[in-house]
């Protein structure tokens, strides 16, 4: 059983695949876009773009520091570089390069991290980006987008290229439930309410949005009415939607495939602390590294399931 199945959603594309398809499709429309890779383009899915546009694809080898600064240089020369690697290597290995060669000068570099979260599975903790959102959010002027499914990842890719300034797009490895089969109106910084409810608000991003929808479905049977918000943009945060949710339901649960500190949960809590009223609970990887294993087993073991969200909802009721 996949996440999202309880609430009737079928498996769709992985967000990395959707990003890769969209990037290739948008190549002609955005002629200034170039890709910069650290030799994992066939994993991050920049490869189809680079193969179709060889003069616009730069694989600088296994050298993430250089990769990010080269992207900064390309942006300073007027190009729109999309620099992609595993989320952990991009944000952690090249963090100072993102700080100094991208964020501080405010250059128009698009950072794309694939293999985010623990759902990459068997390759294990060294390959899991679970600090990336916190690191990206810490940088002034950098927008942070975490799409929930393939359709929103495609829309986010277009929005990213239309956006002026540095932006981090977080993608995942596994196929995820398709939530936006009937279309999406995607805008950076504008959350999407996927389900309305009166008793509690579940705010999530990435694959935890489908888990939140499943949880809402389960809660309904207990007589609890939960609304679900896809907070695909962590920065700039849709504060208006959070304030409205706090007013309406008082109780807010945040779910994300990321460490407890510095991610979506922290960002939402800052808003609720200011605006009130609210009691909150958090579903995340917590304060630990994970381990190797199958994706579903890992999500279960580390508490990133619809059941874990239901549990969190009960804790704030």
């Amino acid at each position: 059983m996949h996440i999202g199945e309880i609430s009737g959603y079928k498996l769709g594309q992985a967000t990395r695949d959707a990003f890769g398809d969209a990037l290739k499709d948008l190549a002609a429309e955005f002629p200034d876009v170039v890709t910069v890779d650290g030799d994992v383009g066939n994993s991050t899915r920049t490869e189809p773009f680079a193969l179709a546009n060889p003069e616009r694809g730069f694989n600088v080898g296994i050298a993430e520091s250089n990769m990010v600064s080269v992207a900064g240089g390309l942006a300073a020369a007027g190009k729109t570089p999309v620099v992609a690697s595993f989320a952990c290597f991009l944000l952690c290995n090249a963090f100072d390069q993102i700080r100094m060669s991208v964020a501080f000068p405010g250059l128009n570099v698009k950072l794309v991290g694939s293999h985010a979260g623990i759902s990459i599975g068997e390759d294990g903790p060294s390959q899991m980006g679970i600090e990336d959102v916190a690191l990206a959010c810490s940088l002034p002027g950098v927008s942070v987008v975490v799409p929930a499914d393939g359709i929103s990842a495609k829309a986010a890719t277009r929005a990213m290229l239309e956006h002026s300034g540095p932006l981090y797009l977080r993608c995942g490895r596994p196929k995820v439930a398709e939530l936006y089969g009937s279309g999406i109106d995607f805008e950076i910084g504008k959350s999407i309410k996927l389900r309305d409810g009166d008793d509690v608000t579940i705010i999530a991003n990435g694959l935890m949005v489908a888990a939140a929808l499943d949880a809402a479905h389960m809660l309904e049977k207990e007589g609890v009415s939960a609304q679900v918000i896809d907070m695909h943009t962590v920065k700039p945060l849709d504060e208006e939607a959070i304030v409205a949710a706090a007013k309406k339901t008082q109780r807010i649960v945040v779910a994300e495939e990321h460490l407890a500190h510095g991610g979506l949960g922290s960002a939402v809590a800052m808003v609720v602390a200011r605006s009130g009223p609210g009691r909150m609970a958090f579903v995340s990887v917590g304060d630990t590294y994970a381990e190797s294993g199958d994706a579903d087993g890992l999500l279960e073991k580390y508490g990133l399931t619809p059941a874990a969200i239901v549990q969190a909802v009960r804790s704030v009721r």
Partner: protein
Amino acid sequence: MSELKEKARILRQHICRMTTEAGSGHPSSSLSAVEVVTALFFGGFMKYKADEPNWPDRDRFILSKGHAVPVLYAAMAEAGYFGVDELLTLRKLGSPLEGHPNMKRLAGIEASTGSLGQGLSLGVGQALGCRLDGRPSHIYVMTGDGEMGEGQVWEALASADKYKLANLTLIVDQNRYQQTGAAKDVLDMGDFAKKIEAFGWHVQTINGNDMDEVVQALKTAQGVTDRSTAIVSKTQKGFGILPVLEEAGDVNFHGKPLPPAMLEQALALLAK
């Protein structure tokens, strides 16, 4: 040539004055690089328009050793990017002449640097971008010798070779000292020329405080059209005011301005 030497003398005066006025900064690290920067800006090597800093076809100078930015500000002021008087606002609140280069605040600065090791990669990116757009721009990057300890520089050297970036020139300002002492004592990198050559680059080694040698090397570099070119510029930290630093018993004189009395001595040396 005598005009260039005269300009170099004026740049040195600016460097000493503005850092003493600021009460902090890296005058000795700036002084070693004066001949190269002077030749680039005033010897006809760099094409730029001071009144149109973002002219797309300009050549670009990236100061990767960002702490030496007084030499760049001095050159930019003399070139007309801003008034010479503004040099005395260095490092002061509200001034775009920050302690390290900030491209967001000062037009004409081509890269925000200060975290060592990133400038050459930025140069590779700019060289790739300009070439892709068919621009004639040439990218000059200056690193320090201590900075060559950063692994990223060697990543950048390798990637420049991959793309045969003939529009990229690296100048290593080998002034032989870094923060805590002699470069050879801190991390002896051996012969930069051999190492950089091994990465597929064209390399020249010169006395970088000799204007004739600098001009000749930049001319030779312009003639290299099939790969990136490097100039290992052997210099002396504090060149131009060395007797003053020697008298003070500190020829490194890293990261501090000349006290007023020393400034007077230095300016006297630089007066002729």
